[in-house]
């Protein structure tokens, strides 16, 4: 019963979905980052970050997510965000995360986007 972010992972054959529940601050951002990079190490280069149950973020948490996107791109991985609230989407745009990463509405759309051939 703390205010800490809860994170759930679902592994599929060609991708993995990370779902968050709660506040994405520095601690929450780092938790997501560690889990995502762990999945990349396991071979999951196609990741979906579903934020359906998060409706508050702070700019430190978002800056950590931007770093995560950069690190995943460095190893030729791909990451799509989905199920953002309107206000989190706006915050991502202001912080430049929307430019760096793919953002789609639903998990289904993220799966389709990941299945598309990777651009060079």
């Amino acid at each position, binding site marked *: 019963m703390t*205010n800490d972010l809860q994170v759930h992972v679902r592994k599929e054959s060609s991708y993995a979905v990370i779902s968050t529940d709660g506040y994405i601050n520095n601690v929450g951002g780092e938790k997501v980052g560690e889990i995502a990079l762990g999945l990349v190490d396991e071979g999951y280069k196609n990741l979906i970050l579903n934020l359906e149950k998060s*409706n508050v973020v*702070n700019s430190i948490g978002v800056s950590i997510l*931007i*770093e995560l996107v950069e690190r995943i791109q460095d190893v030729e991985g791909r990451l799509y965000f989905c199920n953002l609230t309107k206000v989190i989407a*706006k*915050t991502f745009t*202001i912080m*430049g995360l929307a430019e760096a990463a793919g953002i789609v509405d639903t998990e289904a759309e993220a799966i389709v986007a990941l299945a598309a051939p990777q651009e060079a």
Partner: protein
Amino acid sequence: MAKDPPGAGTSKEINLTIPMLPNMEIAATQTAEAVARFMEFDPDQIDAVKIALIEACINAFEYSNSSEGQVYIKFIMNPEDLVVEIRDHGQGFDPEHPAALPKKHRGKGLTIMRGLMDSVEIASGPGGTTITMSKARASR
């Protein structure tokens, strides 16, 4: 409950003081949520107020260098809008020329507040910083 609220001039202000401790901004967002619901704000408006308030609080925590370590938050419920004032008694800064940023991808806190609220005013000086932000009620 109070049929006729006692004190004819009952002000529609809620005051909250939180210590500068990691995660304490959540107490502020929870209070904000109750106030915004009281004003019948919709979920997006509530989220906007919460995130803007978080940014103001964590700035105070991180940069104010306040020796007393308190953040003073005032919610003013007006007929046309909700005003949120966030005050610290720290060192202040020059809003026209904020300090250079130590880290990549940072320095967007004030921009987020401005993007999510209808107005944001900064008063800062050696006595501390006061951010005054407003969000209009839902237009229906």
